[in-house]
């Protein structure tokens, strides 16, 4: 039995289903990201875990105990809010001490634990400041210290980095990850940012429309997406509508895709990540098992260490991403787009 188990959690509001059916098992000390677009039910799931929303059905188990009906204040969950929710009328020290005071921890132990917690997030010097006198990153760290000092059974982070600028977000990502690892604290965090999810967790649960579509390691989810939605939400992808030949093989832009089979019924799309595609000269020989498309370069878009090349062909356009610095074919040049057969992903076309 896993340390944290969500079984068939569901929540619906008057006219909308927020969470349809969420089942997830998290091991002790593991960090799991709930990744999904806004409105997919990830925050609702997190809030049900914290006891801030009562689920319509389903169970929540922590360490073998059913806590579904336990009120929020008895759950011992460390919740870090998107807005941090620091108490504006208390200084940093009082904010962090709050949970310990509510637990009746004796004054000297309290003092010690608060100091240790502030030490961990490197904020001892600011202990007597009010939250509004702190920068966004500092506020974030206070919120983290306040949630960790109570030694929660699970740490819950709700889009906790989304209010920080890009640079700070990167620093905090690593800081939280290091803290999470060193304390071996079971963590569940909600994000719509795939980079954040990939960088901060052991496993990702990709959510869509109130359900978990796939749970797996970051590599799993990226390399072997289980559904069309996962493939297009995690990382960027070229979607190529495919035709079917007589033997069930797939044809894109008039060219057969070796090694790919269509589905028994319905239309099929071929998905290939731009980073896995390569541009070669049209004259270059290509092995028969290598998928390749012929097209013309539309334009090169320079994005720092990468260059995106838009190639148009008879069936539309694809984006190819390569490292910048090398020689690039000019706009208008004829090229071949090639990729390895194992990088071909095949999904049934979405009924729209």
């Amino acid at each position, binding site marked *: 039995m896993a340390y944290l188990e969500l079984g068939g959690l569901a929540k619906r509001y008057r006219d909308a289903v927020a969470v349809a059916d969420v089942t997830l098992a998290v091991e002790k000390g593991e960090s799991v990201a709930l990744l999904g677009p806004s409105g997919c039910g990830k925050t609702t799931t997190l809030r049900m875990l*914290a*006891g*801030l929303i009562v689920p319509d059905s389903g169970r929540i188990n922590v360490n073998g105990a059913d806590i579904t009906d336990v*009120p*929020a*204040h*008895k*759950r*011992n*969950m*460390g*919740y870090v*809010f998107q*807005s941090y*929710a*620091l*108490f*504006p*009328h208390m200084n940093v020290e009082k904010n962090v001490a*709050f*949970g310990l005071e*509510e*637990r009746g921890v004796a004054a000297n132990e309290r003092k010690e634990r608060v100091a240790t917690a502030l030490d961990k997030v490197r904020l001892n010097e600011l202990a007597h400041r009010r939250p509004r006198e702190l920068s966004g990153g500092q506020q974030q760290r206070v919120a983290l210290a*306040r*949630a960790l000092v*109570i030694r929660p059974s699970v740490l819950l982070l709700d889009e906790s980095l989304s209010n920080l600028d890009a640079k700070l977000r990167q620093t905090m990502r690593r800081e939280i990850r290091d803290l999470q690892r060193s304390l071996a604290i079971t963590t569940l965090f909600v994000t719509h940012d795939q980079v954040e999810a990939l960088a901060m967790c052991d496993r990702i649960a990709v959510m869509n429309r109130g359900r978990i579509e796939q749970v797996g390691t970051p590599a799993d989810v990226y390399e072997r997406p289980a559904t069309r939605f996962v493939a297009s939400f995690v990382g960027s992808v070229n979607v190529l509508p495919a035709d079917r030949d007589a033997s069930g093989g797939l044809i894109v832009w008039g060219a057969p895709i070796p090694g790919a089979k269509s589905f028994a019924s319905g239309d099929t799309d071929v998905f290939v990540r731009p980073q896995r595609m390569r541009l070669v000269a049209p004259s270059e020989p290509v092995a028969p098992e290598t998928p390749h498309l012929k097209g013309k370069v539309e334009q090169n878009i320079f994005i720092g260490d990468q260059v995106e090349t838009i190639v148009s062909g008879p069936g539309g356009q694809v984006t190819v991403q390569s490292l910048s610095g090398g020689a690039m074919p000019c706009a208008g040049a004829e090229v071949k787009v090639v990729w390895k057969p194992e990088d071909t992903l095949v999904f049934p076309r979405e009924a729209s």
Partner: protein
Amino acid sequence: MSPSARWSLLAVPAALLLGFIYLWPSLGLFRTAFNETSATGAMIEALSLKVWRELMADSFTYELTLNSLWLSVTATVIALCIAYPISLFLFRTESRFRGLLAVMAIMPMLVSGVVRIFGWLTILGDQGMVNSAARWLGLISTPMHLLFNWTGVTIGLAESILPYMILALLAGFGRLDRALEEASRSLGAPPWRTFLRVTLPLSLPAIVLAAGLGFVLSMSAYITPKLLGGGRVFVLATEIFEHATTNANWPMASAMALYTLALMLGFLALANVLSRRLAQ
């Protein structure tokens, strides 16, 4: 002209109107307070402190002051106890009837004060709803006297300032964030502790502001003490009116009005300072 100067032109009509209906008469009041009254009751143009000396020497002035203060404080406290939960509910509810409920809460403001008082007469009278109900329940045998005394005035006043206080509380609840209460609960504070440690401290500035407003409105209320007091409740406002009309002693009425004004401004300033300090 700078943009901000151009925007401030928008305030000109209001400033003119206020100057005309408020500032000008106030200055007149100020001037009149330094006139004298002859033995026959006629007003004599002067620049003396005679009425002021009379006002300050009269122990009745201090009795009136205490009456006014006591009445205002009790009415404000009662109204606050009723207005606070209502405002908190209105502030938080996600009901689609929220707008309607808010309008209902402040509806009494739209009714004339006199009409409301007649309402209270039918409710609080010896044969009124309260006494009939209490008698029917067997709680009392002789009617409680709820009218034409301090009780009646306090009840009526508390009700009349209620909508204003609800509005002031709603406007002052700015820092009250649901996430803060949720944070408190997630940190282990049960609902009542959350209220004491988070909700209440964060709404203190609103409470002080609303109390200040309720207090000033109660101090200046005339109709309610007059009609529900039945001539047995004496406060500064009723006495000012008495001096201005029955006694035709305008200098005294003016001096007493200015005295009341100073008292109210003092309390309002105090509430303001307190509210600002609490908001920090």
